[in-house]
């Protein structure tokens, strides 16, 4: 397990950031910590932040039962430690910034409306589930159901951006309606399941049944992927919008191939077992170049 770094007193004079350092390992029963959210914390003094409720399973505890709390009156929150069992960080946040030096638990940034979350390590399932705005960046791997709809809900994320540097699990972007998901590493089955709109970029491809039941929306894969028989080949080209998307991704330090001299995207239309107005674009470099 990652060693807990001890931070000194923050800055000089007024704190510009609230720093939460995990003091006690959370490795069996998860800690439900939706109070770690700029909207909740921003107006609170140090004592009030310390007293915020968190739940270890069904037991209500105080935030400072688990975290050393530095700073006050800020909508920037810095978290340190292995938070892989700390759930709901940044739930419903609409502003500010959360940066996590370590791993994050399930439901990171779920229902998020705005602001930024950055994770230096890995995240778990349901990152940005049903989010409607803001940016989540995870440097490491993530779990399944990224930007997805919770069980039963008609739609997943409706706007915002999720960038996962590493791999991701099942049902990435399930029922997403708008927004952008970029996954650096390989993705497991059912990426874009029942997708209704938005864009998923799979930089290292995906396993089975990508785009199953997708109604609309765009899935871009930079590696060849197995396709369902209900996707129909339509053409090979570099779509005009790809240049716009590439420029946007460049602002996130992500590159996207758009040079027709190097290769083209094969466009597949589907999923024709439902509405069938979605598309999967698979990059292929010209051979013999």
């Amino acid at each position, binding site marked *: 397990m990652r060693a807990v770094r001890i931070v000194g007193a923050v800055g000089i004079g007024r704190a510009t950031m609230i720093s939460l350092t995990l003091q006690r390992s959370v490795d069996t029963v998860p800690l439900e910590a939706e109070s770690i959210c700029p909207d909740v914390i921003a107006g609170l003094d140090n004592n009030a932040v310390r007293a915020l409720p968190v739940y270890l399973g069904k037991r209500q505890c105080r935030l400072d039962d688990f975290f050393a709390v530095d700073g006050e009156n800020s909508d920037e929150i810095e978290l340190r430690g292995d938070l892989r069992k700390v759930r709901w960080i940044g739930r419903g946040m609409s502003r500010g910034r959360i940066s996590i030096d370590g791993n994050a638990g399930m439901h990171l940034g779920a229902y998020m409306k705005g602001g930024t979350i950055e994770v230096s390590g890995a995240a778990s399932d349901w990152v940005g589930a049903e989010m409607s705005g803001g940016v989540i960046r995870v440097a490491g791997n993530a779990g399944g159901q990224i930007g997805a709809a*919770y*069980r*039963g*809900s*008609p739609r997943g994320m409706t706007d915002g951006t999720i960038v996962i540097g590493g791999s991701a699990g099942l049902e990435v972007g399930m029922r997403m309606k708008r927004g952008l998901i970029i996954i650096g590493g390989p993705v497991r089955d059912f990426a874009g399941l029942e997708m209704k709109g938005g864009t998923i970029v799979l930089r290292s491809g995906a396993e089975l049944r990508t785009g199953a039941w997708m109604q609309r929306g765009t899935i871009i894969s930079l590696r060849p992927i197995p396709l369902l028989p209900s996707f129909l080949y339509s053409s090979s080209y570099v779509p005009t919008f790809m240049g716009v998307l590439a420029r946007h991704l460049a602002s996130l330090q992500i590159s996207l191939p758009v040079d027709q001299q190097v290769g083209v995207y094969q466009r597949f239309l589907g999923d024709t077992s439902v509405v069938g107005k979605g598309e999967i674009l698979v990059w292929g470099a010209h051979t013999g170049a």
Partner: protein
Amino acid sequence: MAVTITGGRVYDPANGVDGVVKDISIGDDGRVTADANGGASRTIDATGMLVFPGGVDVHTHVAGGALNFARGLVPENQRVARKFVHTPELRAGIGGLTPTTFATGYLYAGMGWTTVNEAAVPILSAKHTHEEMHDIPIVDKSTLLLMANNELMLDLLEVGEFERAKSLVAWLLCASKTFGIKAVNPGGVAAWKWGKNANQLHQPIEGYSKVTAAQIVMDLARIVDELGLPHPMHLHQNNLGVPGNVSSTIETMNMLQGRRAHLAHLQFHAYGGQDWSTMRSGAKEVADAFMKHKNLTCDVGAILFGDAVTITADGPWQHFLHELTGRKWGNLDVENETGCGIVPYVYSDHKLVNAIQWAVGLELLLLIDDPWRVYLTTDHPNGGGFWRYPEIMRLLMDVEFRRSEVKKLPPEALNRISLPELDREYSITEMVIVTSAGPARALGLKQKGHLGAGADGDVTIYSAKPDADGVMFTHPRYVLKGGKVVVEEGEIRALTEGRVFLVHPEYDPAIEDFLRPTFQKLYTLSFENYPTEMTRLKHPETVPCAPSGSSAPSASAEPR
């Protein structure tokens, strides 16, 4: 335990008491006594407050297989539903459109309702329903048995065996420990098994050569009358929700020819026009026809804007609604008995059709001038959650508020409804009639819906002033159930266990000889395991029947 309520303005329309300041005493047996006996262990000072008999919901869906199926289908509603946190007295639960069992009791009692009628029970689901009702605290419960698509009965009607069909119905009521008969889309659910519906009242049902929807309606109404059940046939008519269904609704009323019937959620059966684009309110025509038929009662099944979950045995309609909305859909087939469909739905005040539906429910309540025959329901959770009844009460009692709400409707709705012209306001007495006294009378529960001597000590005491948000009747000051104070200052203070009402009509015992082999051939469980045992019911109370007409030899033995 005796309680005396002093100084309140008592509204007891069944006994002609209209806002008179008087004391109400409840004896140790939990019933209202004729005189204040002075020995009350508790006196509630209700000075300046309104004293009502506890509310009675004549048509709701709160327990059983269909509701549980809906609970499973809508986790997204449950995530945003009101939470009931576990306390030393109360169990944990969630509210919302498909509340958990304990929460159902807390919500009804917390609103001042003390009796509820679960309006759709298949025999095969009766055990489940009774198990759930076992865990719905405080309120008294009754249940209605789904019969209008029961293939055993349809087979008998097909060959003209009316007397045997009557015995079958009586036997099934006894076996399922239910209280009355419900008919849902007569013949339509049986036809749905062939992928069809029963839109025409006089055409044979798919799979049969003679039986029609009309015959099912008339024969069931006759059976209910001849068995002398306390509650008339409870009818969800054919063509629910279809524009232009006014004609079949009025035809059904005429067809009943003076027989008793309760028309469920009439709002869904009062649409004019030919299709969705020409749909308009048919409330005027339906109300006019309804008022001529003194043999009928109805509940409105009003809709409120917002989330709903449609739950009905009307399988073909639900499939249609799913196709119409693109929302998820669940369908159940209950062997030879009935079906069930679930579709979550949102009523939007921007949508023309929903705006008309909203108006029709209120129009029926305002146009039908006899409050003793029209009752307030939302067909919970089909038109909205039952805990929103106070919103409808405000719309009925405050014409200015109603006008301001009508202004929010899409302009094109206004010339398709008559609500803007109606200026009737409900009096407090009329409100008590449509929420308590009337439905209690329709259910045939003589000890409910009034505060005369011998009535159950079910009393709801409201503040005479509206809440800060202008709504009255949302948070009773006190609710008494059987003389026990269960709600005080907006909190559940004590839990009681409600009773379950059932009937035990007489039948020809030879019906079992007919049923056993038929059953063993057609059903997936054995005949012996079919009936619900009496031991499953908590506090059962059998309500007597008053049979009339020719009666077959009666059975004395109680079915298992």
